[in-house]
């Protein structure tokens, strides 16, 4: 057979099988475009230099890896579907005298055409949308748009194209092997023989229930955020297994039970729907389970990234009671570390602020230390070997200040005897035991709880996952004693006293705009101060922690996460569309004969439509409902993980989840309606 002839046949085949090929090519196009975008984002130097952009390369590399994985799965899925539908055609070619290598050649050209179309279109789309995506990211980072992005770049264009060429070549090899294994007579007959009624797979049913139950139980029972992170992936794995097993075995179990119930079963619509569903579930359980899992993925990804992003301000407000914290010291000529006195510090701060015409509301001197304890009922114990356990549930971090410091910061005096203490729970992880209300021991020292405070003037700051307490101690002696206790217990890992100057500004928006300059200017002032005071080698150490810097970091991280969440969410929705579409047409061809027989023995078109609707609605709603239930059960564990990422508002998370679910349901419904039309067309032929 001449090559030109094979090329021509291949072209005609694609045209004839447009119902299968168009989605295949579209899938390839979409995936190629997304992959290119991710890859380019991960390497775009200009974008990683914008404020908050430093995390982009990492997140986008992860994204590109996930995209690559999804691409392999989806392209192989559409390919296997394509091959299944066309086996008969190939069998016929074989019977008509075409050798298998000829079929292989035709297949080669078919793959070549569809791969070329997908890759070229995909890269074109990718290049077009890259600009849009980078603008969107700048928007998420809330920075000014960097103009002049180069958006065509050979160093990502070529690897992106090459990976897909390899992928398509693999599908070709795969198809070639399955063709060489086929037996033409069997292929011609395929689909003609009757199918056995599926049996209830008891082992699978029970394994599915156990696996799903275990996954759900983990989500419900995990108490502390850090183990939530580790167990989350195990729970996800269990739920995925459970979903596949239950869709396969559970659905058939339920349908068979319905069938056994004669009163329910012998009814005009139910009878055809139930028995049809039993067979449909046999073939489509895996597809439906995949839809349910993808849908859950979309829901979780989008709702969590959206709520992280939109809850950012709340997170910042929670962790930054003041706007800027400065700690500065220098080493004097005698080799001693000298802290810059509070008055001098305040002078410098006001000086710098005036220069940038920012009004300072308050400058406070904070002296405190914090130490980690294991909480055991009413006892906070010093346990030196913390690393032995990853279980954070008993751990807590206590911030200590003296009653004098408390008065300085809040203006309120708490009169405390030597054995008295005031406690405040600053933050807590879910399920943490309640605050002791009468008496406590801290590192073995007993105290009577005089007062429970609602507000503690020292904020715990970012990065705390354990429960935080604030404690007001009667005086410096007691404070030093408690400090010494933990120094003995923890040795070189012990914490030390913090002296920091906390600044609150009037208009944080304006201050943030000049944030970098203010910080820079402060550093310079302090360096000058150190020189004036004869610091050894003019060295000084200054640490500034500001809310705007934190915001920049958090914006970069959450913005990148949100972008990933949206893009991967879109790809998952696309995958869902694809599976539904292919399911509808393959079922259409199978159901066609069945409905024609029923028409002959007296089923009207209206009744046919009704039956189809009953079946379709069931199949349509099932994954959506399952995805809803999964999301619901995933909620506790995700909520705990969100705490790890500093999102403290459960309410916001709930709202984001609900909105995501509704939007997803609407999109799903639209997709379904569109694909149903194709199905009706096929069945009614």
């Amino acid at each position: 057979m001449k090559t030109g002839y094979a090329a021509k046949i291949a072209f005609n085949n694609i045209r004839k099988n447009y119902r299968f090929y168009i989605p295949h090519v579209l899938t390839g196009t979409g995936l190629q475009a997304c992959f290119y975008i991710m890859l380019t984002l991960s390497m775009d130097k200009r974008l990683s230099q914008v404020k908050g952009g430093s995390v982009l390369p990492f997140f986008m590399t992860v994204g590109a890896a996930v995209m690559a994985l999804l691409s392999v799965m989806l392209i192989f899925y559409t390919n296997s579907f394509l091959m299944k539908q066309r086996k008969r055609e190939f069998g016929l070619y074989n019977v008509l005298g075409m050798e298998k290598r000829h079929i292989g050649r035709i297949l080669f050209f078919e793959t070549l055409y569809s791969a070329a179309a997908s890759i070229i279109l995909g890269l074109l789309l990718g290049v077009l949308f890259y600009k849009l995506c980078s603008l969107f990211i700048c928007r998420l980072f809330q920075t000014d748009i960097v103009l002049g992005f180069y958006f065509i770049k050979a160093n990502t264009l070529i690897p992106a194209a090459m990976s897909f060429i390899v992928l398509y070549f693999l599908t070709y090899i795969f198809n070639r092997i399955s063709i060489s294994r086929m037996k033409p007579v069997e292929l011609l007959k395929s689909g003609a023989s009757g199918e056995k009624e599926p049996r209830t797979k008891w082992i699978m049913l029970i394994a599915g229930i156990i696996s799903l139950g275990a996954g759900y139980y983990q989500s419900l029972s995990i108490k502390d955020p850090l183990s939530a992170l580790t167990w989350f992936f195990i729970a996800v794995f269990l739920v995925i297994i459970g979903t596949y097993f239950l869709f396969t075995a559970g659905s058939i179990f339920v349908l068979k039970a319905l069938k056994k119930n004669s009163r329910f079963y012998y009814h005009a619509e139910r009878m055809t729907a139930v028995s049809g569903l039993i067979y449909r579930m046999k073939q489509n359980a895996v597809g439906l389970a995949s839809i349910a899992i993808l849908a859950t993925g979309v829901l979780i990804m989008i709702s969590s990234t959206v709520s992280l992003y939109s809850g950012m301000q709340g997170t910042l407000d929670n962790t930054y009671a003041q706007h800027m914290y400065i700690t500065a010291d220098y080493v004097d000529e005698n080799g001693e570390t000298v802290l810059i006195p509070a008055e001098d510090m305040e002078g410098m701060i006001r000086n710098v602020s005036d220069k940038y015409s920012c009004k300072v509301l308050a400058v406070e001197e904070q002296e405190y230390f914090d130490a980690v304890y294991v909480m055991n009922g009413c006892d906070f114990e010093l346990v030196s070997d913390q690393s032995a356990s990853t279980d954070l549930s008993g751990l807590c971090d206590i911030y200590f200040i003296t009653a004098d410091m408390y008065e300085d910061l809040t203006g309120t005096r708490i009169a405390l005897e030597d054995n008295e203490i005031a406690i405040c729970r600053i933050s807590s992880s879910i399920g943490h035991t309640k605050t002791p209300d009468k008496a406590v021991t801290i590192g073995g020292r007993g105290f009577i709880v005089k007062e429970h405070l609602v507000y503690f003037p020292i904020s715990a700051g970012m990065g705390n996952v354990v429960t935080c307490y604030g404690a007001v101690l009667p005086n410096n002696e007691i404070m030093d004693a408690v400090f010494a206790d933990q120094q003995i217990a923890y040795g070189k890992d012990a914490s030390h006293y913090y002296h920091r100057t906390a600044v609150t500004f009037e208009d944080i928006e304006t201050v943030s705009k000049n944030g970098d300059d203010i910080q820079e200017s402060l550093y310079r002032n302090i360096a000058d101060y150190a020189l004036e005071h004869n610091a050894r080698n003019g060295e000084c150490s200054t640490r500034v922690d500001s809310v705007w810097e934190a915001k920049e970091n958090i914006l970069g991280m959450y913005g990148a996460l949100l972008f990933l969440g949206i893009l991967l969410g879109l790809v998952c929705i696309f995958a869902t569309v694809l599976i539904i579409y292919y399911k509808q047409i393959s079922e259409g061809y199978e159901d066609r004969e069945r409905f024609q027989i029923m028409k002959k023995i007296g089923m009207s078109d209206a009744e046919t439509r009704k039956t189809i609707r009953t079946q379709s609605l069931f199949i349509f709603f099932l994954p959506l409902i399952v995805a809803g239930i999964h999301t619901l059960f995933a909620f506790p564990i995700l909520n705990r993980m969100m705490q790890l990422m500093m999102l403290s508002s459960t309410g916001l998370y709930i709202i984001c989840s609900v909105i995501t679910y509704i939007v997803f349901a609407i999109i799903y419904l639209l997709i379904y309606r569109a694909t149903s039309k194709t199905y009706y067309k096929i069945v009614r032929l």
Partner: protein
Amino acid sequence: MEILNVNDIRKTYTSRFGAQQVQALKGVTFSVEKGEYVAIMGESGSGKTTLLNILAALDKPTGGKVILDGMELSGIKESELAVFRRNNLGFVFQEFNLLDTFSLKDNILLPLVLGGEMKLAEMTGRLNEIASRLGISEILNKYPYEVSGGQKQRAAVARALITDPKLILADEPTGALDSRSSSDLLQMFSQINRNGQTILMVTHSVDAASHAGRVLFIRDGVVFHQIYRGDCSNEQLYRKISDTLTLLRTGGDKQ
């Protein structure tokens, strides 16, 4: 009493662009009495299948009338046709047309369930009675792919009978059966007919036709000839049919 009256039925097929017209039926006229067993014979392309589709109300004639038990088929609304078919006609097809997804029992019950008016107890009563008559009581819970062709066809006959139809339309019922199953089925048809069931069978098997009470021959879209059984045995009728077919083939123009 006349149960079916076919009067001057014509059917013209027009090709897609209207360029060519093919007359499948050129005016078929005959009638069937209640309790009769009529076979319609003809070669491929003679118009048998077209005629059967029209009688089954699956297709509409271009001209002429079909009256079943006093009702004119063309007068029935499109939306009521399915119900009409279900209540008045029973079908037996060459390819059985049993649904793979149903057990034989469910296949047989399907027309009654679709009707939706009968109680479950009555349905099963009818089912058991017919199943024992046709000798398939033992295999009711099996699936079509688990039983032989003959058994499938019996189930199909049971499905046709369960609605107690006015007329059974059989389209090459022995076409997919071996000789043994064929003769079993034909004896079954004769027995059903003796119980008073009207049967109209389309076939080109002489053996099948020789069981009928009357044989109509269709050629080129018209009823060309007919033979009554009279007092003939099956064998005698068989010979008569054979002779007629030979005559038809050699181009006799007897009417």
